[in-house]
């Protein structure tokens, strides 16, 4: 497949986002905006400690509060069989703790009161007596002899082991390592970070006891999957549950799991018979909801002296927190970490992973990571740079020598992933061109001579997004397909209903553009409906950059189906055979007689009109599909970051950042750039400042935005973006996902740049986040951060 740089975006390209007028005018409607008559408010009492046995809970004072309607503990839930719930990884998680608390911030009890303030005040009237247990905080010692067993709720569990996982060929990898000229090993930590969406998680549950119907407004990226799981867990019939995911203020994976708070709100409404709202506060979001990363990785790379990479090997210790609540396709306990071989044509690869429980919040896949590809790309792009350091070779040159070549696609990696398409070299070349790489290296040499510290970091990534083919992937038995329904109204306006849910990605625009491209109705005449299980077809939702690869494909296919029907109706209207019709966007005309034509709007009116339709054709102009992707899509990109480091204070300034992305066919370049800008900002944040850390007692040290730092406009440069286009061969319009590309690709570029700047100090690696203190540590030869 060749790269076509002037490939046109889908029609209407850079149109402004249809959803923005309501957002910029403050007219968005979020879960916390839902107000129902008689609605009560729920607040959750959380554990102040990381590991302790619950001796007793006295709720009498809270119950006596004049505005409190109910106080519920784990024991009360246990009576209904609801104290535990399944996680997305086939583990169980406590809705409310019954026996022990297993992380600081764990749900212990809840209060339902007339208003939010009273509910929160009443929490302080609950008296819990804890018998303190030794917490397991360090994943490295979680499996040590005599380590306290966190999950004694699991029958026969005698250690903190979650799972072992491996991929690749161990023996073949050992063989290439044995004959390699150069082997480089580096310990690389991807610290625990948090997605921290601007809107925290929450729900309003409204159970109608007469109809037996539950309506749940909730902050979910996957309304249909959640509904099915509620039906399975709560025993409510699925057709009596309606999940509405209204406007969502950012997800980044944080809103994929089902949290105890949602279940508490549902239970409260079922029991009390009134609508109940639960909205967590900022600290609750940071301390208790789905974290991301927390992989301790040993990376090894084997190469020839000339810089030909032979093999990559890694050993990973994964910290899953107190419950394995990782959200990933069921057969992928390590997510898609298997793509750690990156964009390189190598001879062998092997990864081995051990996952452990610790007394920390559960979660494990979130923050725009494409199911652990963030960790995989960071590992390979860091270790390749370590190799460049050892070989004293330019990192662009080293990468260039090893990239998979265009004629090798579809390319099966040594861990079994089939990359659908790619043309890597031009993408890397474009980034080098925009950056003015040669000039930058000259500038760096001059600066080094003057004692100034400047670094240039390169990363090249390949992502695997759009989960996924039903032969390979499911979540708790649910296939990862997406439905789409398109209905053209008599006047030629249309509504398209999606099973995915936007958290800010611009679906209402992008999907209207896809449909507009296929059936020629202007995007402004196409309404996009999503986020309501009663009004949309089934599908698994938005995460892992899957909306465009899966649901976007469904939208194109359903539009083509409608167009096929329109063609038959047009043949009747023009009294020619179907074969004699020619489609130009928006109209069918008679081949060789373009004056005779009918527009899609005229066809729509005929479809709903009183006149005759061709034989066997029903009235109406609509269709529904369920799209099962043939493969994942594999976007790629080349990033170059330039930093300056203050030699006296060790502060890092990101001066420039060049991002060249290839996400196949581009639908709305403005939206793509927005996604890339956001992801790059995420990447700078993770590389330089973000980390959820814990003290030795398991206290979370990142419980507010004063402690958990997110980057601002002042920490990031003006982004310089570019693109190449290598369409996906199996996606109906050739598009690939892009939502997470920049989050995946940018952290290694930033870290590689900082490490490059510190080369005069002999630094080969330093762990994120590269705060001034850690950079200073690295300059002073300390491998382990001193805090």
């Amino acid at each position, binding site marked *: 497949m060749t790269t076509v740089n002037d490939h046109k975006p889908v029609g209407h390209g850079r149109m402004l986002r249809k959803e923005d007028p309501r957002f910029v005018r403050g007219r968005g409607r979020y879960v916390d905006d839902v107000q129902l008559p008689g609605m009560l408010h729920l607040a959750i009492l959380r554990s102040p400690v990381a590991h302790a046995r619950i001796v007793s809970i006295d709720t009498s004072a809270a119950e006596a509060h004049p505005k409190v309607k109910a106080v519920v503990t784990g024991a009360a839930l246990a009576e209904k069989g609801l104290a535990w719930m399944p996680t997305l990884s086939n583990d169980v998680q406590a809705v409310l703790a019954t026996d022990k608390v297993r992380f600081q911030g764990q749900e212990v009890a809840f209060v339902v009161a007339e208003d939010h*303030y009273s509910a929160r005040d009443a929490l*302080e009237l609950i008296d819990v007596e804890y018998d303190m247990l030794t917490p397991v905080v360090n994943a490295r010692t979680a499996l040590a002899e005599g380590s306290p067993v966190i999950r004694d709720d699991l029958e026969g569990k005698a250690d903190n082991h979650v799972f072992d996982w491996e991929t690749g060929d161990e023996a073949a990898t050992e063989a290439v390592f044995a004959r390699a000229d150069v082997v480089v090993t580096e310990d690389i930590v991807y610290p625990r970070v948090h997605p921290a969406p601007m809107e925290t998680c929450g729900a309003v549950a409204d159970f109608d006891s007469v109809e037996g119907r539950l309506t749940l407004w909730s902050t979910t990226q996957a309304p249909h999957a959640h509904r099915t799981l509620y039906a399975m867990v709560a025993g409510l019939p699925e057709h009596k549950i309606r999940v509405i995911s209204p406007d969502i203020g950012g997800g980044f994976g944080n809103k994929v799991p089902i949290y105890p708070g949602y279940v508490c709100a549902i239970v409260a409404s079922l029991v009390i018979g009134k609508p109940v709202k639960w909205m967590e*506060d900022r600290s609750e979001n940071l301390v208790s909801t789905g974290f991301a990363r927390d992989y301790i990785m040993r990376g090894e790379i084997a190469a020839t002296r000339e810089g030909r990479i032979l093999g990559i090997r890694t050993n990973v210790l994964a910290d899953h927190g107190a419950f394995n609540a990782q959200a990933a396709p069921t057969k992928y306990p390590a997510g898609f970490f298997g793509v750690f071989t990156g964009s390189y044509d190598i001879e062998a690869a092997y990864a081995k992973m051990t996952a452990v429980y610790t007394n920390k919040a559960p979660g494990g896949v979130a923050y725009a990571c494409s199911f652990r590809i963030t960790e995989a790309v960071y590992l390979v792009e860091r270790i390749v740079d370590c190799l460049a350091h050892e070989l004293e070779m330019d990192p662009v040159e080293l990468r260039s020598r090893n990239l998979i070549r265009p004629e090798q696609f579809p390319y099966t990696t040594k861990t079994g992933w089939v990359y659908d398409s790619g043309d890597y070299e031009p993408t890397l070349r474009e980034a080098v061109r925009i950056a003015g790489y040669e000039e930058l290296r000259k500038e760096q040499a001059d600066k080094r001579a003057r004692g100034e510290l400047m670094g240039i970091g390169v990363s090249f990534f390949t992502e695997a997004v759009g989960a996924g083919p039903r032969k390979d992937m499911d979540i708790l038995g649910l296939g990862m397909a997406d439905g789409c329904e398109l209905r053209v109204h008599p006047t030629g306006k249309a509504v398209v209903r999606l099973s995915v849910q936007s958290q800010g990605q611009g679906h209402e625009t992008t999907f209207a553009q896809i449909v507009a491209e296929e059936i020629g109705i202007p995007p402004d005449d196409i309404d996009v409906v999503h986020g309501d299980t009663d009004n949309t077809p089934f599908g698994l939702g938005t995460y892992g950059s899957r909306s465009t690869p899966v649901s976007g494909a469904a939208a194109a296919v359903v539009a083509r189906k409608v167009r096929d029907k329109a063609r038959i109706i047009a043949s009747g209207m023009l009294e020619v055979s179907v074969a004699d019709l020619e489609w130009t966007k928006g109209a069918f005309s008679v081949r060789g007689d373009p004056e005779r034509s009918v527009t899609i709007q005229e066809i729509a009116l005929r479809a709903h009109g009183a006149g005759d339709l061709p034989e066997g054709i029903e009235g109406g102009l609509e269709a529904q599909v369920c799209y099962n992707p043939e493969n994942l899509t594999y976007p790629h990109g080349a990033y170059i970051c330039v930093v300056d480091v203050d030699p006296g204070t060790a502060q890092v300034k990101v001066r420039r950042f060049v991002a060249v992305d290839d996400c196949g066919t581009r639908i709305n370049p403005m939206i793509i750039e927005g996604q890339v800008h956001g992801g790059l900002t995420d990447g700078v944040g993770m590389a330089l400042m973000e980390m959820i850390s814990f003290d030795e007692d398991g206290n979370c*040290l990142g419980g507010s935005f004063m402690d958990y730092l997110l980057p601002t406009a002042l920490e990031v440069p003006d982004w310089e973006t570019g693109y190449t286009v290598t369409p996906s061969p199996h996606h109906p319009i050739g598009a690939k996902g892009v939502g997470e590309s920049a989050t995946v690709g940018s952290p290694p570029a930033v870290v590689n740049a900082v490490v490059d700047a510190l080369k005069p100090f002999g630094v080969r690696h330093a762990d994120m986040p590269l705060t001034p203190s850690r950079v*200073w540590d690295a300059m002073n030869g300390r491998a382990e951060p*001193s805090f």
Partner: protein
Amino acid sequence: MQVPAPFEYERATSVDHAIGLLDRLGESARLVAGGHSLLPMMKLRLTDLEYLIDINELHGELGYVRVEGDEVRVGAMTRHRELLESDVLAGVFPVFREAERVIADPVVRNRGTLGGSLCQADPSEDLSAVCGALDAVCVVRGPRGERLVPMVEFHRGPYETALGQGEMLVEVRFPVRPGGVSAFEKVERRAGDWAVASAAAAVWLDGGTITHARVGLAAVGSGTVRVEGITEALSGQRPSEELYTRAGRIAARSCDPATDSRGSAEYKRHLAEELTRRTLRRAVAGTGKA
């Protein structure tokens, strides 16, 4: 939404009214000015106050920057933004504008006040170091009248001030001496964050010789709003790199930083030295950004 525990609210309409309320309500009452430290603490339920006395209406009475005789007087309710924008202040003490540029963000600076900053007595707060370096004097008013407390005595420890029962800070006075120059430097992990360490330096020169010099540090332990021994080491000397280095070493020795998520104690001690050197160098070079 994070919500505070129940509290009573009073709005003071004059300084005397505020003092009367403080005196009557005692320990359970707190003044709120900009609220950017107190309100988050209340929402995180880290305070146990029962009464909140809002003094924002006193901005008319206590919001000013005035030159009177040989001192600059700044009202306690003067907002960060007003300190930042005051050309009078920047002309005399460039260190003020330099510090204000990197204190929090515009939203906080629109509300936060000089008095609130000093009375919060957060050891990481930048203006305390500025006031220490400028030999500021705090004017404290209470039921029994007014008294003057030098900045070096105003903080008694982390989050503790010299304010007694019923007392409030109403003004901060800065002596203006000829030949004064000053500068501010801060290292932070991110714009708007508290300092990993920051330093304010003020130097007075006469014919190229230092007559007086002060350095204040923030975020490196308590008792550093004015580093002891700087003026003794620098007075009578002509400015030089060697001299700045000597002052930097004094600063590093004088502080007692703690390791936390902002950085290691060792790094912060290094910054005390580095930033002292830089602020002195820039102050003397006259590149303090007025």
